[in-house]
């Protein structure tokens, strides 16, 4: 059961209790990544030139979770993202899928930032969204899948957090969430405002209609660069010395018949016998 939303901070809560109609404000942080299906490998090097940018699948799950809450409790969804000049295009995917507005930081070479640097920038961007109640991340990005961002941003913003969440309900001034661990599930009450990272596949992201795609570009957006926000980005804390596809020395022998297959299985795959 969904209990009415009562506001995620003191000021808002007071307003709601006085009968002022306040919207629940949900921020979704999404990462612009290369379309992983289209990355080709040449000489063990991943080729990223010409690969279109998109949002990762888990980030789309995060957005869908936010939109479902907004539909249940009368709220609004703000997408926050950091990326290169193509981000204005990429973000339309999220706006078409029922996010209401966007806040972006656009810089060249931004993809070279490490987790600590990106977290700082993202937290600053989220602070530009006034009176948010909930910040939702995916459990990890589609490309790097490091899973640090939700936790780092929660720490910078000084908020409680819950990760690997598979369901979210709003109960007055708290979120009731289910966290799915390897061996158990936890039902948690997390005071708002809070940061929640959702598990992959907790929902089926909606596919926007053509008319929504066309209208996406007209939704409100705010665009910043690093100078606007007056943040000093620290030096990278992580260095990458190489990033190559693993060497493969597989034999690549084609088998033409089931009897050839059986022979191979008997000689090569008898480990368990």
């Amino acid at each position, binding site marked *: 059961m969904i209990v009415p939303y009562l506001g995620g901070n003191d000021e808002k809560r007071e307003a709601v209790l006085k009968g002022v109609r306040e919207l629940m404000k949900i921020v979704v942080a999404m990462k612009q990544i290369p379309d*992983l*299906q289209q990355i080709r490998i040449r000489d063990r090097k991943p080729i990223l030139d010409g690969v279109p940018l998109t949002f990762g699948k888990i980030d789309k799950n995060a957005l869908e979770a936010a939109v479902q809450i907004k539909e249940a409790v009368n709220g609004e969804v703000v997408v926050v993202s950091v990326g290169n000049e193509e981000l204005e295009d990429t973000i339309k995917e999220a706006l078409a899928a029922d996010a209401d507005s966007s806040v972006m930081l656009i810089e060249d070479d931004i993809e070279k930032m*490490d*987790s*600590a640097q990106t*977290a700082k920038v993202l937290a600053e961007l989220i602070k530009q969204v006034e009176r948010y109640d909930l910040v939702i991340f995916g459990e990890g990005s589609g*490309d*790097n*899948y*490091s*899973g640090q961002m*939700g*936790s*780092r941003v929660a*720490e*910078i913003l000084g*908020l*409680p*957090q*819950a*990760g690997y969440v598979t369901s979210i309900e709003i109960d007055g001034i708290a979120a*009731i969430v289910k966290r799915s*661990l*390897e*061996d*158990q*599930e*936890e*039902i*948690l*009450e*997390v005071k708002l405002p*809070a940061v929640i*990272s959702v598990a*992959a*596949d907790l929902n089926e992201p909606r596919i926007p209609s053509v008319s929504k795609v066309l209208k996406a570009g007209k939704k409100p957006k705010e665009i910043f660069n690093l100078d606007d926000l007056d943040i000093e980005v620290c030096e990278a*804390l*992580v*260095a*990458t*010395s190489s*990033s190559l596809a*693993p060497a493969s020395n*597989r*034999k*690549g*022998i*084609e*088998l033409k018949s*089931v*009897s050839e*297959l*059986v022979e*191979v*299985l008997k000689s090569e*795959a*008898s*480990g*368990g*016998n």
Partner: protein
Amino acid sequence: MAGVMTYSNNTALALELLTAAGLMGQEVKALSINNEQQAQELKDAGASVYEVTGEYSAADTNMVAEILKQAAAALGVDIILLSSDRRGKELSGRLAQKLNAGCLTDIKAIQVNGTEIECERNALGGAAIAVQSIKSTKQVLAISPKVFKQAEPAGDGSINNYAVEETISAVSVKEIIPKSTDSVDIADADVLIAVGCGVQTKYNLPAVEAIAQSLGGLVGCSKPVATDWKWFSEERIIGLSGKICSPDAALILGVSGQVQFAVGVRGARVLISINSDENAPINSMADYYMVADLNDVLPQLKDAMS
């Protein structure tokens, strides 16, 4: 010399971390929170254990990170090893941010070169393997399960009680529901049989099981087979968002071989694939591949193997 601190709420993984910590050539201190049995097991493995007891909720990531931050300062350690299970991964980012530390998660291999700790982890959704190291003094490293063996019993362990300041929690646990877990772990399989969408119908599964049995193998699957088709539990998923397996032999049935899956079988000594698509990427990743419809092959293979 600064030391290394290890922590996982999962005792098996905490024992693996002791093995990893042993590579660093520094003094190792194992933290244990509200888990007397774990403290004892770590001590029996020869560790200097620092046991924290109090009103702490493992579910409150901020609270656990705060304990670790205080302990790291008090014990004078710069390197903190955590387990890269879900609990540990969530914790690592929060702790790293508190310490202004660089952090790497899902670490698959470690190479210590003097003071530099080089770590391997998957990048670009598994298409590449990145070699990375942390430049900050404080380092948080979350190591994937089963990369290291559990530390064996050894002498000279000790348990010290250690007190930390209490913090207020904004997260409360209302209920804990155990998951019904599989009794088998496909990550341990010597022979792994992977079921993909090319298996087409559930009616083929008895043949797959029979083949698995004759090979002494365990059956796993690609992600959609578990999440969309629900043929298997999620613990049977092979790949980036499931289990990373290193069997002696893997028989891949009807999986096209997208990188997110391939990551999970890359460590197999021998890869054998059957797929109806002659252009499937899996063919070029395999030692042996057969282009055929599994509806035809599976019954024949089952009969031939039995």
